[in-house]
């Protein structure tokens, strides 16, 4: 399984110290991503942006959140939530 930014419309984001705000220009919705969700989306958008497989995601997110130690299941749940919100899509 792998995910990428959606091709349906641009996604804008801005990192604040306490969280990432993400704007889906296609749906015109805004999302606030704290903590693990911020790290997961951040990894998805880090160049080269595009396809990442779950083990790569897990490793990168774990490095971004050394204290939280999210499991693969945690990250999968976040990826699926981001997909539902139209911020990522399955490649």
């Amino acid at each position, binding site marked *: 399984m792998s995910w990428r930014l959606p091709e349906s419309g641009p996604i*804008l984001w*801005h990192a604040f110290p306490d969280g990432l705000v993400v704007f889906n220009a296609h749906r015109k919705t805004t999302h606030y991503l704290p903590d693990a969700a911020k790290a997961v989306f951040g990894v998805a958008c880090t160049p080269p942006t595009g396809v990442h497989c779950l083990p790569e995601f897990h490793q990168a997110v774990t490095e971004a959140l050394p204290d939280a130690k999210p499991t693969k299941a945690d990250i999968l749940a976040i990826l699926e939530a981001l997909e539902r919100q139209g911020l990522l899509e399955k490649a």
Partner: protein
Amino acid sequence: MTLVDLPSSELLSRAREYGLVFQAGRFNIRLHTRIPAVLKSLQLMYADQNLVDEPFADFTVRVTRGSGIRCCYHPQSVFSLNGARPFAPLPLAHAFPLLEWGLNWCVSQHCHQYLVIHAAVVEKHGRALILPGLPGSGKSTLSAALTGRGGWRLLSDELTLIDPKTGCVHANPRPISLKNASIERIRSYLPQAVLSPPVHDTVKGTVAHLRPPRESVLAQTNDAIPGAIVFPRFEKGAKLQLSEIGQGDTFMRMADNAFNYSILGAVAFRALTTLVEKSLCREFVYGGDLDSALECMESLVQQ
């Protein structure tokens, strides 16, 4: 010539015939009405605003008496913009508050050259203090105190207008809407304040309007640079508390308070991220001690 300079008979004549055109912040309003109480309150509240001789007005509005048999025993007032009636008729005694709410509606629903946020905004030392909040949060009371005694300039007590191109706040100083207990609170705190006659039993309770300071009206074409975003919350008897809040959290709360965020889309997203990045973000709880509240707000623009 300002509204206060116009004789009452001429005021009534203009409002009945061609429309009374006056400046209200960045906008020219053409008002048609035959209701004397509306014109009396208008002249009191907009005393320092200029009359306009230009044929163009941003908004052509009417406040008229309701028609039909019901109006014989329950006189009503109706607000309309270019013939459209966005609100249900209200009792005739509510005609002036209806005009004020109607003008707010005109700006919030039509002025998409701005990001329009439901927030009071005042300025001091060149820095704007934005006070977003739901009705009852105390933003109008606080802005009345800040502008009446604290030496701040009123930009608006209801609608913060952000120019997405420059990031500046545009002024739109109109009467401050006070409700219920805050009417007497401000009357005693600011004995020299000019208030409109209280109107009872509105959807918001008892409402009275406070005339904006003359200095704020004279400076209404001056923009302000955002300095702080403070979410006020009035809690009777509460201890004064000013606490820092996260910028991401502030962004989301500001987006929730914006009238046209979804309409402007990416433009609003960028304008809001820039605004929040440049501003101190705070939450403010106060319990009615306005002197201490003023000191607290002063500390924000001195940082």
